[in-house]
């Protein structure tokens, strides 16, 4: 019997139940967190935990965010936001592309771009 088969045979079913349980737990978590992920009409840009910009998703704009290692450019267009350029070495934040919900973070430059929904100024929506 191959070594792998033997290993599997020796694995009590509890282990498989655990595996299934974890997978189920995480995959539902995927969906849950996806929904939970803030969607809204405001983009919050923070540097080192401090909010520097509050932009409307409905207004196309490009802003410069100054961080410890340089200037990160954030672009809002067509109801989405992305990191246009960042001076970090790995450029992971740039590779994320456009988001409509959730967050983009640039760890080296300490920049966090997040979408915020919910109440703005105590109201559920704004007309005008």
């Amino acid at each position: 019997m191959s070594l792998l088969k033997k290993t599997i045979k020796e694995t009590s079913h509890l282990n498989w139940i655990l595996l299934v349980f974890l997978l189920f737990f995480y995959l539902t978590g995927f969906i849950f967190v996806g929904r939970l992920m803030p969607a809204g009409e405001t983009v919050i840009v923070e540097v080192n935990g401090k909010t520097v910009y509050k932009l409307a998703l409905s207004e196309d704009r490009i802003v410069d965010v100054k961080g410890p290692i340089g200037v990160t450019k954030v672009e809002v267009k067509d109801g989405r936001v992305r990191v246009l350029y960042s001076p970090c070495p790995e450029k992971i934040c740039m590779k994320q592309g456009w988001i409509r919900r959730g967050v983009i973070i640039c760890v080296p430059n300490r920049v966090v771009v997040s979408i915020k929904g919910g109440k703005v100024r105590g109201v559920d929506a704004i007309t005008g």
Partner: protein
Amino acid sequence: MNHMKSVRSWIFSLFLLSVLVSCRWGGDKVYRESDFLLDTVVTVSVVSGSAGRAGQAIEKVFRELKRLGGLLNFYSSKSEIREINENAGVKPVRVSGDTLRVIQRAIEAAEETNGAFDITVGVITHLYDFRKKIHPSADAVRAGLALVDYRDIEVDPGRMTVFLRKKGMMIDPGGITKGYAADRAVSILKKEGIRAALVAVAGDIRGYGLKPDGKPWRVGIRNPRGAGDDIFAAVELRDQAISTSGDYERFFIEGGVRYHHLIDPKTGYPARGVISTTVIAPLAVKTDSLATAVFISGVARGMKIIEGLGYNAIMIDSGGVRHLTEGIRDRVEFIKKDN
């Protein structure tokens, strides 16, 4: 020895299984999604006990709004509006039910407001470019005015056609499409069994039902001379729609004159005297078109139109003075400026 291990592992298995089975989400929550449709940001907030059902309902709304956007987009090369405009003075164009209905509602609004809301003013508005700060010459406006008259739109409901009688006529339903879409969104949500929701197609908003905390939806009205999310008032929406037209939405200032997008169909120039109008009525298709019409009609005539229809409005004239209909006085909360 092996027995014990076996029994223990079975007990643990059963424990894990029961935890798996009893996983459940409960309680009503607000689920909120945004998308870029109809050339703007559409946000739908839904109250539901299940994330799945909320997501499904919202998906349906977005799909429908995307479809409507395709039909009614003034700028798109494939829209039915484009086809109608290209065949002005030539022949009637066969259209789908939604396009027909939008145009019918637009004509209704024109009749109710004595021509203040008139989608044929598109022949002049499309000559404006607010980004490049371009406005038409006096001659172009005069030439365009000859083609502005909603009575020259021929709608044949039987044959499902729309015909623009004069060559060169152009209709732009932009002032009513968002309201129409918001109403459509609400009917979809109600059909999906959602008992409370708030649909915001940019500034054309309709809300029904109560939030989980038992309160109705609260909508803020943007301060016409403020920045970003600065609001001057808040209104509670109890199964109602609200729209606002302002001279600050699309504009540029040239030679001290503000050129904005709310063109008076009678003069061909941006309407003066008012800087912001908000209309509250049961349907968004009404609030959208009437907000524009009332802005153009001015305070006196505008208020009369709204009161005649039994709706409510808040207008701010160019002097900064607020005018309200009687019915809304107790339901508006004016927000003090905070720094």
